[in-house]
């Protein structure tokens, strides 16, 4: 028995030391996060980005006529975090062209941010899709690799970061999903505009997701503020808020719960799947006639990626015309939702001229302020 205690005491001591070390490490690494460590990273990334952009400009000069071709990456694995699991076909196509396996996990943008911060290392090689605000925040935190794909040359400037931290794969547009039978039962007309939604008669019939959780619904709030102007915008949001029973805790809540007949009107990202769901469940999809809020869906490479070469190859691949068409098909995008010129998507009837003229530069920076104010307005929607 004594033996055991001797040995065990030894191990415990070692364990304690280990514990202390690890917590010290946390403390020291966290305290230096702001200064030393991140500076190092910053520097190295700077140098990468410099010679990358150097290369890029060369390539752009020589190969501007067509998209860059894929190279052989057989035997390597590319890890991707995506917004949903619908991109399997796209990843298969990438594998066909390059030989690289793709492993993916779907995750919300917020989770990507907090986990990457907590783990102190990238979640994956590529971050595929998600609201632009998260990408802007990640860039500010130095989490993104700067890479300007030669295939991004023709993407309009507003859809790509000037330093190459992110590039959009398309845009999400918000509209309404309407459960006609629910509205009929109450003798309510199908709303055509955002303005309609502030009418008291829709009280309790509208559902949207909490904008701090759903990128689309953040885009709705931000877009309507840009559309109406700050002051009038908040007035509108207050009226809209009084018609909403509660804010969904999941991005898909509005679509799911409107489909299930729990609500008459859901504020949703409009794509082909919404139209399909509408057809199967006898619902209708409405592009609001007065204004269409929208948000670019970002893609980026994580700094410190294990397979940088494949990650870059993927971004190049993703921006080719063929891949863009495939993405448009998988996402069910209208042509107006595609950012690459010359790529055709579906014809869902999106009125392009109604897209709100948004100030994208403040999309990330004003997020906290906007959500703070929104929280104040929506606080009565949380049970006391």
């Amino acid at each position, binding site marked *: 028995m004594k033996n*055991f205690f001797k040995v065990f005491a030894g191990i415990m001591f070692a364990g304690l030391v280990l514990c202390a070390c690890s917590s010290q490490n946390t403390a020291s690494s966290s305290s230096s996060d702001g200064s030393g460590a991140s500076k190092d990273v910053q520097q190295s990334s700077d140098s990468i980005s410099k010679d990358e952009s150097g290369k890029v400009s060369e390539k752009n000069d020589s190969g501007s006529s067509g998209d860059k071709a894929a190279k052989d990456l057989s035997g390597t694995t590319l890890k991707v*975090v995506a917004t949903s*699991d*619908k991109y399997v076909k796209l990843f298969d196509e990438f594998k066909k062209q390059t030989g690289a396996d793709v492993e993916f*996990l779907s995750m919300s943008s917020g989770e990507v941010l*907090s986990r990457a911060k907590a783990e102190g*290392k990238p979640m994956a090689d590529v971050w595929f899709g998600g609201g632009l605000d998260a990408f802007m925040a990640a860039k500010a935190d130095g989490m993104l690799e700067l890479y300007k794909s030669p295939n991004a040359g023709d993407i309009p400037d507003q859809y790509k970061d000037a330093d190459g931290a992110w590039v959009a794969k398309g845009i999400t547009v918000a509209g309404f999903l309407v459960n006609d039978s629910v509205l009929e039962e109450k003798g309510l007309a199908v709303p055509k505009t955002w303005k309609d939604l502030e009418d008291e008669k829709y009280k309790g019939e509208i559902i949207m997701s909490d904008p701090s959780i759903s990128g689309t619904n953040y885009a709705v709030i931000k877009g309507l503020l840009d559309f109406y102007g700050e002051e009038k915008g908040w007035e509108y949001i207050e009226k809209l808020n009084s018609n909403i029973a509660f804010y969904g805790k999941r991005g898909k809540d509005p679509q799911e719960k409107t489909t299930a007949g729990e609500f008459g009107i859901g504020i949703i990202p409009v794509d082909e799947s919404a139209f399909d769901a509408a057809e199967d469940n006898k619902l209708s999809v409405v592009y609001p006639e007065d204004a269409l809020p929208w948000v670019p869906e970002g893609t980026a490479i994580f700094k410190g990626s294990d397979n940088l070469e494949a990650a870059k190859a993927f971004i190049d691949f993703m921006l080719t015309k063929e891949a863009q068409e495939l993405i448009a098909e998988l996402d069910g995008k209208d042509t107006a939702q595609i950012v690459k010129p010359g790529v055709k998507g579906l014809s869902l009837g999106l009125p392009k001229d109604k897209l709100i003229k948004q100030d994208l530069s403040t999309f990330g920076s004003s997020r906290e302020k906007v959500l703070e104010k929104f929280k104040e307005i929506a606080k009565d929607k949380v*049970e006391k």
Partner: protein
Amino acid sequence: MKHKKRYQIIDIIIMSILATGIVIFIMVPFFNILAEAFYYENKFDLRYIKSLFDNKTLLFNSLRLGILTTALTLTAGICVSVYIFICSERLQKFWLMILGITMISPPFVTALSYINLFGRRGLISYRLLHLSVQPYGLTGIVLMQALSDFSLCSLLLYGVLKSIPGYMIDSAKSLGAKTNDIICDIILPNMLPGIKASALLTFLRSISDFGTPAIIGGKYNVLALESYLAVIAQGNLPRAAAVNLLLILPAAAVFVPYHKNLKNLGITSHGIETSNSKIVGKGIVYNCIKAIALFFLLWISMQYISIIFSAFTRMKKGSLVITLENIEETLPYINQTTLRSIIYSVIAASCGSIMGLLIGYYMQIRKIKFFFWIDLAATLPYVIPGTFFGLGYLLAFRQPPLMITGTAAIVVLNVIFKQLPFSTKIGNAAMEGINIEAVNAVRDLGGGRHNEILDVILPLSRRQLGLSFINAFTSTMTTIGSIIFLIHPGHKVLTLVMFDVIQSGKYNIGSVLALWIIIICIVINGSYMFITSHSS
């Protein structure tokens, strides 16, 4: 002598591994995440802790939810277990099977099928009863939590009932006691320790569940959900940690006085014969119990049938059609993931059940005082919410010496230690059932420690090992909270895939996956039981 020395060393090594394992994989993550709550922008700061007390609503909401769910689950559990205990043998087998199946409850599914059944357009509420109800809020969460917890609770209580010495019931009957009296005077009082233990388990499960409130909570928010959202929506780990910390207060408040009752859960019959003569099923008390029990049993059956139903149907152009499309569409999701989930779960279940037994052995048979603390530490993962435990792993193992974030190891270790509390409870109960004289006899005959374990302990606790394996396997196959923040691309498990598809609105595919998880659990648990019961 030489042999003896060698076994002594092995003995010490085993003890050390157990103890260090628990320190490193339970205590270290726990203190890491605890510390996180005291930071703001990487500096020591009490702002998150202070901000918690500005808004006590969430704490009260969690408490109210926990208490109501526990009350309802126990009512159901007590009635169902007593009813099954008394009813005819054939019915008994049938209902036990139903409980065994419904005990496997993949996350989120009951909550979603609840909307389909009882929502504003629900099959029962709207089409059958023509009601237009809003299923959201506290009531919805309580009902769904109770429904997904009562099967396990009933099975545990049924185990307690089986251990009531038969002579007590027999002598009461021979003295002319009616069924009413037997239930009130013998059965219920004898169940009390088991009831307390189940209450504790249910309460802890209820307050740390974030999935059910997320789907059907509506306006009703609770701490567990708030902390989950702090991570996924705000990216605010310190706040998540602080919110969880608040959740630990009520958990610890019920855990400290009641944890001793937990050992009743792995109860053995101590060789005492259970009653041979049946209790007659009559009397007002019995009939009330029966009515309540049948209500819950039918309800849970219905919810599971609705899962099967939605796995094979789909809405097409306004009408419901039976189809295999859902299954076809599920196939690409499950090929690699299935095998991976099974492997993780088998590792967790094997390691867990053996560790649980060994901890019980060192504590109960060898009476090593130190293991009292080890046992207590091993119970910690029950008190702390799954997400909190997972975030602790994230923080503890992101730097050397043990840098395992992003690997499969961190996921497997997490699930092993997450379900260890139950295994150690069963291990302890198993050891209490072992006659210490049998162990001493081995020693008197010149046997070493290894003979003790291999010849007495293991054969006598086969049943408990099985119980613990099945429980650990099932809970690992259905767990989500503790691993959701640890999984990287390439380590996806079935529950996570299910979570994904449900999040993206593919409820029918979610149902197929739920069904698939249930089938895997039934097959693995069934074959495990078959092998162990036939190997003797």
